């Protein structure tokens, strides 16, 4: 079982401990805005447990993924909407 995985966030590669959530990877590269609200406000994770939907990003082409509930997998491509 590898200790770390590498994901790509907005084109930037980052190594994360195995079992980390995608939300942590996004924050770790310094991005605080995960998405824009319906009136264009920058938004980031609020609840950390999958119920607020503010941490949504596009993962491997699929939009509206809750990054705080998605475990980082090697080679994952993550795009924020911020």
């Amino acid at each position, binding site marked *: 079982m590898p200790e770390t995985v590498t994901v790509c966030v907005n084109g930037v590669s980052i190594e*994360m401990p195995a*079992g980390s959530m995608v*939300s942590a990877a996004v924050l770790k590269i310094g991005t605080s805005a995960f998405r824009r609200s319906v009136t264009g406000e920058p938004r980031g994770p609020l*609840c*950390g*447990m999958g*119920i607020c*939907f503010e941490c949504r990003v596009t993962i491997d082409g699929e939009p509206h993924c809750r990054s705080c509930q998605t475990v980082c997998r090697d080679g994952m491509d993550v795009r924020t909407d911020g």
Partner: protein
Amino acid sequence: MGDARHVCDLLVVGAGPAGLAAAWRAAQSGLRVAVVDDNPTPGGQIWRGGSPEARVWFERVRSVDIQLIHGARVFHAPQAGRLLAEMRDGVCELNFTSLVLATGARERFLPFPGWTLPNVMGAGGLQALVKTGLPIDGKRVVVAGSGPLLLAVAAYLRKCGAEVLLIAEQASTAMLARFGLGLVFAEGKLSQAWALKKNFSRKGAKAQRIRYLTGCWVVEAHGDEKLEGVTLFRGGKRWQIACDYLACGFHLVPNLELVELLGCTIDTGGVRVDEFQQTTVSQVYSAGETTGIGGLELSLVEGEIAGLAAAGKRDEARTLFSAREKQRKFAALLNRTFALRDELKQLPAADTIVCRCEDVTFERLRAQSSWRAAKLQTRCGMGPCQGRVCGGAVEFLFGWRAESVRPPVLPVRIDSLI
């Protein structure tokens, strides 16, 4: 497409303390048990990342025959004895004779100017993010809101290297003092909560003081594209401090969506259960925070009672009643102590967003005649969070209670509805 089908005697929804306790007891008693949970690993919120007590329980669960189904979001109850859960690749059909709903709780968020800035998070929210890989070393954090969770979060963050600037607890010193006194009678609790506070205020040679301010709350979060600082209020005075994160939550509210979908009667504070944790719907039990916010120990004992009752072991369940009663007293004290003060209703400004999914402002909402009118006219509560974030706020601000629930109780792919 990856659809799966499970059959069991007892299905437990939620792999937190209450759910695992129920599953263990039921499996021990010979039932075929399955536990379903949205998260990738068991433990719910409080045991995320493990703890000594969690390890004991995980060991217990491993020692019996329980099927753990992870990454599964229950969204529909199409008929009696069946739930549907969406998974990454398809839909899972869960068939059961009895059901334990142990869906836990979420934080209550109250809106205030700037609360939608990135890096303003829940208290449990920031803790969860750190537990799942967010580096917090050297970051300045203000912990605010209400509840014993604030102390636990502050302690954890500090352990991870954060600079916890202060804890702002809205409850007054007087309220907390009563809590402290009550705690003397609750076994083990004093050490958990007040020792933390003592550690914070004791001047250690190298230990950093963390101010624990009662009767204090955040009135504004500042920043351009993300949080840069907060304004605090206490005893008529306001002051600003710079920080990187604000971990702010106002105690907890139970996750009752599935409970409501199944038609169980709900009282103020939680789902109605009898002495064996059975709801008003036959063969449906509930345990843990869903019956009313009460903390870890109460969740465990309620879970055990539910598991035993579902397995027909009523006599054995009865032996746990007095432990439950003791915990319930503590829980009642807890909820009274951290009751939210009325001043918090003045926190939002006219243009403060209350519904984050649809960007509905406070002034638009207060012009509405009812929750239903608000939902239709402004779409507050009609976004993806389905009112889980704004619901606690509108109940506190306007007295509006959530109404009937329809499937899907969590957003799911169109495919999963077919």
